[in-house]
């Protein structure tokens, strides 16, 4: 899709489906926050769930054998399907052998993945989706827009219109209750007629052959039990060794998914089940008629065993498909799975699944909608590093691209470690450090030049930088230049020493916040060093330029190693850089190097908080309230649990603090500059604007910790946002 087409597609979804998706994902999301809070040992359950999945995937081939044996021993059949076609062939054979005319089906993303409905219809079997959301989608002839709530993009009014048009009831249906009861009746009849019932399986137990189905409606129970033939389709990754292993998942799945403590029905079925099959319309007693039960378990590989061998995609197999990563994602909340999805899977982990089961092209469609903000990381019940998977897939997609017609423009200018083919737009943002260096060296001419209409036109045409977005203004004097001329604290007077990390933005665009950091730290008795350090790798990482990011990580470590040896801490102003040191560097550096750097690095206000906590009298040095502030933390900062330090310090200084509760500023670095995403970034941002522009709050000084948030707030508000460190720094001498 071209950038223009993509922008139009996103705009259309913002207008049509955005509100419904937003309303529904928010309910799930808020529900999850509340539901996990009630949980005594949330962290312990997540650790346990993660361990169990790691172990089960490790032992997968052996578990497949064990499960096959058990199910056959129980009297069922198991078929291990290599791909979609193979699975569909088996399933249609089962239906045809049994002379089936109709099949009722409960929701299963795995069955969507193989498009089994199409295969069955082609074989002359009528398929009815009985999950009410799936039923809506089936009537509308659409694809699910969410892995848990397939129809969340539709409003009640739209569903009513759809039903009234399709079924032409005597009285038009209107309320949710009427719609539900109509569907229950209609589908109840389909269940009674059905020859085969098909379900998915959320988990499978190898030692007993038990399958766990997680539902609220009860339709899966009906599909599994009422007809005499039951076909369950499940990805091979869903097997757990023992029955007891289900416990953490039972307690986590509904909470993570829809925010309920449990769904109404957690069905633990060991088929063929003892329940009698039901001969509807009969006056013979029900009891005992379970003899003619048939059970088929179709285990689907479809790329999974290869994912297991792929060190980066492997984690995807731990996923329990709860949808939390989609629900918490600001971009997903605004556009839903019809933009943020591939052939089947959508949202955060959708990239991993699509890349694994349908191939990179399917993931490419939506992979860039992940901004790497990391908000999903703490939400995932099995602790998958979802943004990392997205960056890896992005990198692989980049490598598969053809070089663009403008490639020559950047080839000579950029020192990156990428092979040709990385799209120009990504390459530009991935090399932002070089751009900033150049821009700052030639400021103010560069700033003036960049803003000229022909330049904006060219930037949009060649690099896809949206004309409506303000560009950063490069400073004439960088922080490093200022620091060289600055007389710092002599070692003898200092209680400790730190390296202040001069990130690209602080150094070239906003040296004031760097100066404020230096001033504050020195006033608190800390000697500050500002060595010439390489970039952190954040910029190329977010464009999926992994080799460049890795190279920068190594260089940076080289640059700080001696300081670490000397016992100095590393203080970062930009949270996304700190998130690299504490997070992604684990993937790039040897373990010991990673441990040393991550253990010694801090966010600037976190560090100041620590200094003051150590010596409470020092608080006097900082500039204090009273005053009213509106504070927006930063997504990665929140993921690391650091926003509290800024909040606490501001409160300690007697400021009245309003902290933003919205998920995201919408900007996320380069994302909001890109012409295909500009409108989405603004749409997300309006919520933050609303929060800070509420009546009664407009007098507050706006503070933001991250660069992108500051940029976005600057575009949204009339008030100019500042970094908290600038705000609390003692006045210059």
């Amino acid at each position, binding site marked *: 899709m071209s950038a223009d087409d993509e922008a139009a597609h996103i705009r259309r979804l913002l207008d049509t489906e955005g509100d419904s998706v937003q309303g529904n994902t928010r309910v799930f999301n808020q529900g999850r926050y509340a539901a996990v809070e009630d949980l005594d040992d949330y962290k312990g359950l997540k650790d346990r769930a993660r361990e169990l999945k790691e172990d089960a995937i490790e032992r997968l081939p052996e578990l497949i054998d064990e499960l096959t044996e058990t199910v056959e021993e129980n009297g069922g059949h198991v078929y291990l399907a290599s791909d979609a076609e193979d699975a569909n062939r088996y399933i249609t054979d089962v239906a045809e052998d049994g002379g089936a005319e109709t099949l009722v089906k409960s929701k299963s993303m795995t069955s969507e993945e193989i498009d089994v409905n199409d295969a069955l219809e082609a074989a002359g079997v009528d398929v009815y989706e009985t999950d009410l*959301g799936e039923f809506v989608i089936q009537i509308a002839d659409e694809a699910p827009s969410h892995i848990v709530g397939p129809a969340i993009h539709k409003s009640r009014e739209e569903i009513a219109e759809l039903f009234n048009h399709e079924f032409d009831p005597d009285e038009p249906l209107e309320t949710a*209750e009427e719609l*539900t009861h109509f569907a229950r009746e209609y589908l109840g009849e389909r269940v009674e007629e059905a020859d085969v019932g098909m379900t998915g399986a959320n988990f499978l137990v190898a030692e007993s052959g038990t399958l766990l189905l997680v539902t609220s409606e009860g339709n899966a129970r009906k599909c599994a039990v009422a007809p005499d033939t039951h076909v369950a389709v499940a990805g091979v990754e869903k097997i757990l060794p*023992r*029955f007891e292993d289900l416990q953490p998942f039972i307690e986590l799945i509904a909470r993570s998914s829809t925010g309920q403590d449990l769904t109404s029905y957690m069905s633990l079925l060991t088929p063929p089940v003892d329940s009698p099959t039901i001969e509807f319309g009969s006056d013979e*007693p029900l009891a005992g008629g*379970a003899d003619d039960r048939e059970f088929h378990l179709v285990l689907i590989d479809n790329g999974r065993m290869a994912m297991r061998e792929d060190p980066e995609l492997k984690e995807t197999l731990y996923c329990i498909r709860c949808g939390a990563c989609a629900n918490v994602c600001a971009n997903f909340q605004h556009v839903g799975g019809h933009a943020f999805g591939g052939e089947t899977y959508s949202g955060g982990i959708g990239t991993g699944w699509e890349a694994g089961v349908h191939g990179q092209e399917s993931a490419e469609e939506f992979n860039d909608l992940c901004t790497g903000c990391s908000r999903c990381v703490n939400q995932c019940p099995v602790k998958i590093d979802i943004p990392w998977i997205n960056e890896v897939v992005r990198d692989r997609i980049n490598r598969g691209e053809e070089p663009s017609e403008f490639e020559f423009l950047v080839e000579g200018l950029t020192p990156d470690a990428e092979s040709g083919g990385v799209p120009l737009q990504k390459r530009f943002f991935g090399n932002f450090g070089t751009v900033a260096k150049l821009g700052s060296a030639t400021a103010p001419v560069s700033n003036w030049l960049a803003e000229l209409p022909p330049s904006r036109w060219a930037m949009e045409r060649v690099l896809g930088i949206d004309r409506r977005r303000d560009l950063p203004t490069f400073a004439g004097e960088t922080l490093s230049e200022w620091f060289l001329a600055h007389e710092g604290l002599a070692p003898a007077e200092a209680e400790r020493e730190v390296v202040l990390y001069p990130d690209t933005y602080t150094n070239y665009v906003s040296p004031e916040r760097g100066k404020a950091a230096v001033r504050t730290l020195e006033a608190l008795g800390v000697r500050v060093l500002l060595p010439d350090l390489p970039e952190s790798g954040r910029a190329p990482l977010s464009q999926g330029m992994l080799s460049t990011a890795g190279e920068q990580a190594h260089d940076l470590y080289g640059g700080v190693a001696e300081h670490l040896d000397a016992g100095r801490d590393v203080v970062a102003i930009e949270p996304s850089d700190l998130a690299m040191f504490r997070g992604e560097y684990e993937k790039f550096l040897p373990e010991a190097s990673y441990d040393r750097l991550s253990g010694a690095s801090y966010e600037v206000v976190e560090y100041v908080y620590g200094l003051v906590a150590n010596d409470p009298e020092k608080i006097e040095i900082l500039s204090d309230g009273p005053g009213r502030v509106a504070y927006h933390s930063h997504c990665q900062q929140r993921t690391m649990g650091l926003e509290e330090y800024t909040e606490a310090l501001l409160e300690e200084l007697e400021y009245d603090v309003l902290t933003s509760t919205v998920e995201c500023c919408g900007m996320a670095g380069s994302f909001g500059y890109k012409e295909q995403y500009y409108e989405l970034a603004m749409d997300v941002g309006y919520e933050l604007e609303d929060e800070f522009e509420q009546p009664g709050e407009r007098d507050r000084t706006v503070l933001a910790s991250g660069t992108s948030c500051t940029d976005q707030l600057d575009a949204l508000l009339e008030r100019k946002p500042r970094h908290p460190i600038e705000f609390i720094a003692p006045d210059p001498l």
Partner: protein
Amino acid sequence: MSATDTFEDSLDGLAVGTTRLSPEAFEETVAEAIDEPAIGTPLGIEGLSLDGTSVVTDPTPNQLTEATTGVTGASLGIADYGSVVLPSTPEGAEPVSLFCDLHVVVLDADDIVPDMPTAIGEMATTVGDDRGSAIIATGPSATADMGALVRGAHGPKRVHALIVEQ
């Protein structure tokens, strides 16, 4: 708080009615709890039977689709969650607990366990080792797919729990 109190509290939060009763009051309480026509399956609780009630205990498929109330036993109650564990039986406890508008579930107070790990531990034997089937049911059937929360999607709209204190 006793396990039964916690259980009752949890059920209250799920909009499930409860009645605590002695075995002697069983028949009378069932009569109050059900809406006719009612069907049921053996409860699996010692000393308790639906025989003396108006509940039809060996239902046919026709009675299954026509009944308003289904009465079944539960093997466990999970206090923390207000869940009941409904074993599948050859007599049809599974459909009887699912197809009717009202599900009346009968539970021995002694079978109430405090939490999920304990319940799963017990089910590891009754479901896992014995290769049985059971539903952990929590509240009535529900859906939010039609634009608002509605109780009674494919399963019961209402659930009422009878807790028998021996």
